[in-house]
């Protein structure tokens, strides 16, 4: 898994590539939270993400709770498989997925 970040004012875009699973979710969480100070809009670009497990979903939930207090969060570019996972687990009700 690799994460690239692009900051533009108060908007932070994180481009996540590869797999977010039990072994990589901690790294995902640390890198995502490291740059959240002062961010009002968090965009997670999942165009190159091909796998996310429950460990990854818990990180998304945690990020959503933080961003609910300081702004907004949305997910873009998720493929059909990842969208199905959001749907089945009910995360499509919690997250903003475009």
């Amino acid at each position, binding site marked *: 898994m690799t994460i690239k970040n692009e900051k533009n004012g108060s908007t932070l875009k994180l481009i996540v590539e590869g797999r977010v*699973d*039990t*072994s990589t979710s901690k790294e995902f969480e640390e890198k995502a939270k490291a740059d959240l100070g002062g961010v009002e809009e968090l965009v997670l670009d999942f165009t190159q993400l*091909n*796998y996310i*497990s*429950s*460990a990854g*979903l*818990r990180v998304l*939930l945690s990020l959503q709770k933080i961003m609910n207090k300081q702004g907004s969060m949305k997910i873009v570019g998720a493929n*059909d*498989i990842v969208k*199905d*996972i959001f749907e*089945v*687990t*009910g*995360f499509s009700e*919690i997250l903003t997925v475009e």
Partner: protein
Amino acid sequence: MEKNNRIISKLFRNSVISIIAAAIATMLGVVIDGIVIGRFLGPDSMAAYGLVTPIINLATAFSGILATGAQVVCAQHLGAGRADKARRVFSMCMVVTAVLAAVMMVVVFLFRGNIAVLLGANGKSAHLLPLVSDYLLGMLFAFPSVLLLFEFNSLMRLDGDPNRVIVAVVVMTLLDVAGDLLNALIIHGGMLGMGLATSISYFAALVIMLLHFTKKDIIFKMSLKNLKLKDLGDLLSTGSSSAAGSVAAMLRNGVLNRILVATVLSSTAVAAFGVLNTVFNFTSSVMIGVGLTTAMISGMILGEEDRSGAHALVKVSVKTALIIGTFLAAVVFIFADVIAGVFGSADGAKMVELAARGLRFYSVSIILYGLNICFVNYTQGLRRMVLTNIFCFLQGFVYMVLPALALAGMLQTDAVWLSFIIGESLTLITIYIYAAVRKRGIPYKFSDFLFLKEPFGVGEENLFETSVTKADEIIPVSSKVYEFCEEKGAEPKIATLTSLFVEELCNNIVEFGFADKKPHSIDIRVMKLKDGWKIRFRDDCKLFDPTEWIKLHQSDDPASNIGIRMVCGMAKDVNYLSTMELNNLTIHL
């Protein structure tokens, strides 16, 4: 294909002790009776006891057919995930057993005098008639227990209650010894008392076993609905090898007795052979226990079409037979004089000396017997009934009787003792030749002795198997599963979901099932089928049904049970079954 079968080996080791205990139990009561009768009630009572033995053999033969049939057929259904069919077969077995027990009790009660005459209490032995009749009357109350105990032995194991049999056996043995001694030394109830003491002890064991059915989450529940005659046919045909073995044994003993009667030592030799047969009954019960364990697990393997499971089973079965067989052979050989002496000296020192000699010859055959029984039971578990019955009859009759007849003129009683060694050797050679014919070469690996009917299961090229024993193995396995699916042309969605399900379910099992700090294993099989994909998880942790769990724990908390929700929500079908204290989860995509 990576190794996948720690659970099969562990299951075998855990099962074999209780199954051996129960196999011994079905004949232990009668053996204890024999020792007490021989010691305290005199030679006429001992002779009467000997005359009744064929009736006990008949009850255990019937029980063997039903028990073996039920065990193999139910294990096969459970291995294939068909719990409802396993329950139906169980119910049919119980109905047949109840009818059989009732018929046997009524017939023996009404016609015990005639039966006693038929068994040999006539002519010069007419004075034995009241003793035989009394013993039959006391024993007839044991018939339901004798029939059911053998059946419950393996069914309890399939239903996750393996230790109950051991408790029942211990209680039965203690009560039987106490009851027999009380009868012989204080009550003086004669042969009727001996029979009743045995019946009471068997009944106590049965009560302990029946308490299993008061438990909530069991597979085998009795129901008279939807019973099918086809199930009875399956039971009887699958158990037929047990009948073949019993018939072979009865014929063998008859012929060998005739050979011994014709020798110079005649009745002494027959008495010595009686001692050897009793020891044979005990040691063969132990090896039959190994065989029954093999049959039970091979039935499950057949249901699941698990080739590598079959390989693991043959390997552990052979090793166990060799270890136990060597131990028993050493004990019988070294303590032959002591063992022979236990049965009293009704015919004096000559009988004991002859019996000890016979035991030493016999001890050499025990290891070979163990190996042969394992293969015979293994093929029976695979429902290869013709093959099994042929092996049974050759082993139990042809290969022993023919050498004994051929050598009797030259070696007298030694011909009979040698027939055990020759018979088991010839049987093992026959099995080896069969493997060679199938392979069209020299068989030398365990996989050459699987005897599977092809096509069997998914071909190796469409199968991925592995085991997880630690948390840090999960992600590498999940990645390998993805690569396997991709390599076999699966759509990206299928490859992703298969990999995901492996990660989610293994994480759950490790987090909750491995928490007791004992060594555990998760065996995983991923199979590419003609009409989709299948994943099977099998673990040896505490029983847990995720499909029931998710129904009971529907929650608004988005962070709870995410993994199980993913699996149940995205798979085509999720099926859970618990058998032999294992969790089995099968997922279709």
